């Protein structure tokens, strides 16, 4: 039981992070029907920006929470700019091309960014200064670290903020309108290029936050850290129903839980396999996902 609860806490932590990354996939897919392969790299860039900024701010003598907060905000902004640049350069010129072309372009950008990170940051792991937030508390028999509290808290805050943005604000409505009908949204005066750019920026901001969370959680980042979590987060988006924001959050939590429990109870070597198997099973048996709208097969 104790083990179970402990795994539950870990699963929520990890699942929240996957949810943040999954949102970027699902929002971009929802608006331009593209699997943005470069999204995993944006997440990795966020992780690096986190460690770069936290180390610098910490060395300047700022207190830990200021470091964390400032690094979070700056890294989110950085990744938003990065994703907008990627979209402008590699996806926007291909708006009229076949989907295969855009997909390949996305794959190219993924390789490009990953190697760009490697060239500028080196091939070795870079350690997070995790010593700034230490300790934790016991809830019954379950150990919860303060770091986990921060991660879950920030994740929850971002998820709520996103929901408000998408469902309550004018821009959020415009985003949903553009995803549903680009021609019509242009006819009511919505500049779809700008909305698409913004969608990339928001998704990237969330991914950057996730990258920092993971860096704090595992204590280090690596240039190729985006690849496997990228696939898992995409699985989460598919599991939740691609294009659906609530679905991506749920899917992320589920994938995180499944991974942690499978690692704990079945096999830790094969933990990465489970997410893929779920992805395949969902696509095969339930292609619309748990919250999904109908995915039209003829639009390929």
């Amino acid at each position, binding site marked *: 039981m104790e083990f179970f609860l402990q795994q539950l806490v870990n699963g929520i932590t990890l699942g929240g992070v996957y949810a943040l990354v999954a949102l970027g996939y699902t929002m971009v897919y929802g608006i331009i029907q593209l699997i943005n392969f470069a999204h995993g790299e944006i997440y990795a860039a966020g992780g690096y920006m986190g460690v770069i900024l936290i180390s610098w701010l910490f060395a300047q003598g700022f207190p830990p929470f200021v470091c964390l907060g400032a690094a979070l905000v700056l890294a989110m902004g950085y990744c938003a700019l990065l994703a907008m640049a990627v979209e402008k350069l590699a996806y926007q010129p291909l708006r009229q091309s076949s989907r295969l072309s855009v997909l390949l372009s996305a794959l190219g950008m993924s390789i490009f960014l990953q190697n760009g990170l490697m060239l500028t940051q080196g091939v070795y792991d870079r350690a997070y200064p995790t010593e700034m937030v230490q300790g934790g508390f016991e809830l019954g028999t379950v150990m919860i670290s303060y770091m986990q509290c921060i991660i879950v808290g920030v994740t929850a805050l971002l998820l709520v903020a996103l929901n408000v943005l998408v469902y309550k604000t004018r821009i959020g409505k415009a985003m949903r*309108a553009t995803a549903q*009908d680009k*021609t019509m*949204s*242009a006819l009511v005066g919505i500049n779809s290029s700008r909305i698409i750019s913004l969608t990339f920026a928001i998704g990237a901001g969330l991914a950057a936050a996730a990258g920092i969370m993971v860096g704090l959680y595992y204590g280090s980042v690596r240039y190729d850290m985006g690849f496997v979590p990228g696939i898992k987060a995409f699985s989460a988006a598919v599991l939740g129903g691609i294009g659906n924001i609530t679905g991506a959050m749920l899917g992320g939590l589920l994938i995180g839980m499944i991974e942690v429990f499978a690692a704990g109870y079945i096999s830790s070597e094969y933990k990465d396999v489970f997410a893929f198997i779920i992805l395949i099973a969902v696509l095969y048996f339930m292609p619309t996902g748990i919250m999904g709208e109908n995915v039209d097969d003829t639009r390929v």
Partner: protein
Amino acid sequence: MTQQQPILELKNVTSAYGRIKAIREVSLKVYPGEVVSIIGANGAGKSTTLMSICGVLHPEQGEVWYDGVRIDGLASDLLPARGLCQVPEGRRIFPRLSVEENLDMGAFFRKDAAAIDHDKNRVFQLFPILQERRKQYGGTLSGGEQQMLAMGRALMSRPRLLLLDEPSLGLAPLIVQQIFRIIREINEADGVTVVLVEQNANLALKSSSRGYVLETGNVVMEDSAEALLANPDIRKAYLGE
């Protein structure tokens, strides 16, 4: 009326989908305050004409002038703010936005919250059913309600020129009458100029002052609505006599 400056003018507009020319050298003029019909059979190029006006399709040749400004190179999202608004074929309401959100999208470019609220109330007055269904997803409405929503959404942008593409398509006769009554009302009461594209020529011409007849991408006739209604060729070809 003819001494006035036209609010919309097409000069020899040719538009194509790929290599297939959909309209050829279409010229037409619309004066402020008019209701003008464009009638023609399926595939005659009526919707293409509207899409070419709205910048969804950029003409290969020719010019589109609106309110003294040449607009054929402009992106379509810049036009609603200038008072040019289209209700496209098939209505194209946003299916997973609520009725109210759909209306909000019509006023997307506007910042004047109080006036927007006022206009929303006016739309609800014109179409009371929309107020009842305010929180419902647009996609769950019936065809007639969707047409009302689409028109309501267009009105939310305070248009000066409203382009309506087949507003009667697929609707029950009673609802069609209601829609056309409202078209006349917004023309007369709000002074909105209307371009009406219709297959139902009889209905369209009866609500219009003038009409253009399109055939395989060309304007073949242009006259006052009464004259067109009286024309034996038109009666034969489009009014089923």
